[in-house]
């Protein structure tokens, strides 16, 4: 059997790193508190990176650290010390965009260097150049289609990573500084204010260039077949529930592919779950066609808020069968809820009784982040998720 493709998840903090690892990621990418393109995510301290690496490595998973800002002079001085510290903390690879870092990292440490999508790599010759520079993996531009990906893999043998799910940029990554001009926030140093999602006017009519999200669930088979090494999910700012849901779906698709049991029924079922978690419409964008009129929005508000996430299991007492959850959205006694676990166990449950923190009976869960309890005769691991059930 060929090497199994990697499922790569974002993780905005330590909790989400653990959830990503438990819900099926083979590797996670995280940002430190410096030099990462999501400057406003919580991100990881050195101690947290160390703890995250130990947790991931114990499960046989990898941790990649983003170092993908476009450096200004003032960012350079501290970076070498920082690199040493995070290598010592146990990371497996750096994701960089500035090429001056590559030689230093490769000559000083035995960790991989991946080139960020920020560099918009789109062709065989560029990948050959990067190969000579010592880059171990290239995250291709999101504008590269199936045939070009295949040609790059066939002609270079480079490890190639492609995005499969999440928000898309309207412009080539690294080739957009709208945020700098509009808000003085530096797009290429983690300050992107997503100006491409703002409403504009053109000839006094509404104009928007906002694009739909990426969803490659129907094309995973093809991506594996052409030799992509790693499938990347976007979103270090995404919630634990989002990650658990998206990872579970793609894990199911990938595992079924390798087991020889993948069929359209499974993909359709997982795609329905993925559609529910998304707050925008989806498209495959450039992989199987040139992005066109169907891949973007033109006017009005297009994002919907999602209240499917009802809670997360924070404790389960096997003796008393008492489950403790942290509530996220409203539900009530009598509702049927859907529970899914890191073991990919998945079932429905009718809420007969509900208790508050003091074990007083309540009839509804309507306080965000409230601790609640119910009895259930089903072993529920930590970080099991509860979502709304629709018949």
């Amino acid at each position, binding site marked *: 059997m060929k090497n199994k493709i990697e499922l790569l998840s974002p993780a905005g903090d330590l909790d989400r790193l653990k959830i990503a690892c438990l819900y099926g990621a083979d590797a996670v990418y995280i940002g430190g508190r410096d030099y990462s393109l999501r400057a406003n995510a919580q991100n990881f301290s050195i101690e947290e990176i160390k703890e995250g690496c130990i947790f991931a490595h114990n499960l046989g998973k990898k941790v990649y650290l983003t170092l993908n800002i476009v*450096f200004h002079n003032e960012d350079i001085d501290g970076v070498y010390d920082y690199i040493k510290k995070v290598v010592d903390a146990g990371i497996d690879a750096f994701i960089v965009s500035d090429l*001056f870092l590559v030689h230093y990292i490769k000559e000083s440490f035995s960790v991989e260097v991946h080139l960020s999508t920020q560099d918009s790599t789109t062709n065989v010759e*560029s990948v050959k150049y990067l190969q000579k520079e010592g880059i171990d993996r290239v995250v291709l531009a999101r504008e590269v289609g199936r045939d070009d990906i295949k040609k*790059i893999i066939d002609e270079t043998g480079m490890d190639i990573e492609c995005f499969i799910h999440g928000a898309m940029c309207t412009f080539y990554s690294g080739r957009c500084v709208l945020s700098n001009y509009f*808000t003085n926030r530096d797009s290429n140093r*983690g300050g992107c204010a997503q100006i491409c999602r703002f409403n504009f006017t053109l000839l006094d009519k509404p104009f928007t260039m906002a694009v739909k999200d990426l969803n490659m669930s129907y094309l995973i088979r093809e991506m594996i077949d052409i030799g992509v090494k790693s499938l990347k999910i976007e979103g270090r700012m995404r919630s634990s529930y989002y990650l658990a849901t998206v990872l579970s779906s793609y894990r199911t698709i990938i595992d079924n592919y390798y087991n020889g049991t993948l069929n359209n029924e499974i993909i359709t079922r997982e795609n329905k779950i993925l559609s529910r978690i998304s707050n925008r419409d989806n498209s495959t964008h450039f992989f199987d066609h040139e992005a066109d009129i169907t891949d973007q929005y*033109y006017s009005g508000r297009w994002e919907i808020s999602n209240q499917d996430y009802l809670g997360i299991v924070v404790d389960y007492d096997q003796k008393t069968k008492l489950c403790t959850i942290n509530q996220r959205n409203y539900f009530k006694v009598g509702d049927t809820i859907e529970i899914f676990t890191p073991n990919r166990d998945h079932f429905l449950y009718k809420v007969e009784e509900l208790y508050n923190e003091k074990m007083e009976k309540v009839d509804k869960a309507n306080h965000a982040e409230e601790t609640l309890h119910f009895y259930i005769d089903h072993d529920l691991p930590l970080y099991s998720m509860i979502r709304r059930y629709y018949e």
Partner: protein
Amino acid sequence: MKLLVGLNKKDFSLYLNYTNSFIIGLKDFSINYTEFSLKEIKEIREKYPNCEIFVSLNKNIFNKDLEELEKILLFLDEIKINGILFYDLSILSISKKHHLSIPLIWGQEHMTTNYNTCNYYLNKGCSYVYLSSEITKDEIEEIKCRSKVRLISFLFGYPDVSFSKRKLLTNYFLYHNEKMNQKEYEIISDDQKYLIQENNLGTRILHKEILNGIKPFHDLMNILDYAILSEEFIEHEVFMEVLKTFYEFMNHLINEDEAFNKIKELTGSDNTGFYYKKTIYKVKDEK
């Protein structure tokens, strides 16, 4: 410092009173500057042997472009063009493969932001870097102190902001079932105006506030090797006055205030871009 003009008219002679350095585009391989064909480039090379001609090949290169790109680079090397401004690393790769002598300008326009990366490209054989328009004068001065690479910066014109492979205007007009009958449009949000233009390579956005770079021109006079003045989207007569003003200022025929005010009068702009305005890195510092 020399004035490097991105011209609208293909007739170089119109500009020769003030400069003999030009930057041009090549059809289907450039996302800005006036597009010439290879034949036209050869003709102007022969007609103006004393002019410096730089060609911008700054599109994102895909596999289908590589064969043609290789021929183009060999051709431009043979006719001794003065430099190629590139975005995609394939140009560096092909240039090395063929041991081309044509000078290369690393021009990933928003990513040329620090001395270490400038030195990296210098060591890879690039003669020049085209600095990001989003860095400050102080940063440019530090780059000059810590790198021997020759520096080019954008000092007049509408600044490039974004480039997409998507056909954003075609899609918009198709969606609204209307005809696209202008070459470029203006889009506005929160009183901020941008130019949007589409061609066969994709869609480009420019800030609709002309950069009036006289002050940084003065401050960086001994630091930059070339100042790019772009005529794009500007009336020829206005641009010629601007070019003349830069020329006169450079030759001490007028002072800085006179030059700045003249350009402000001509263009309505006193915008100095990011030369004196640092961008925010982190919105909330969590250290």
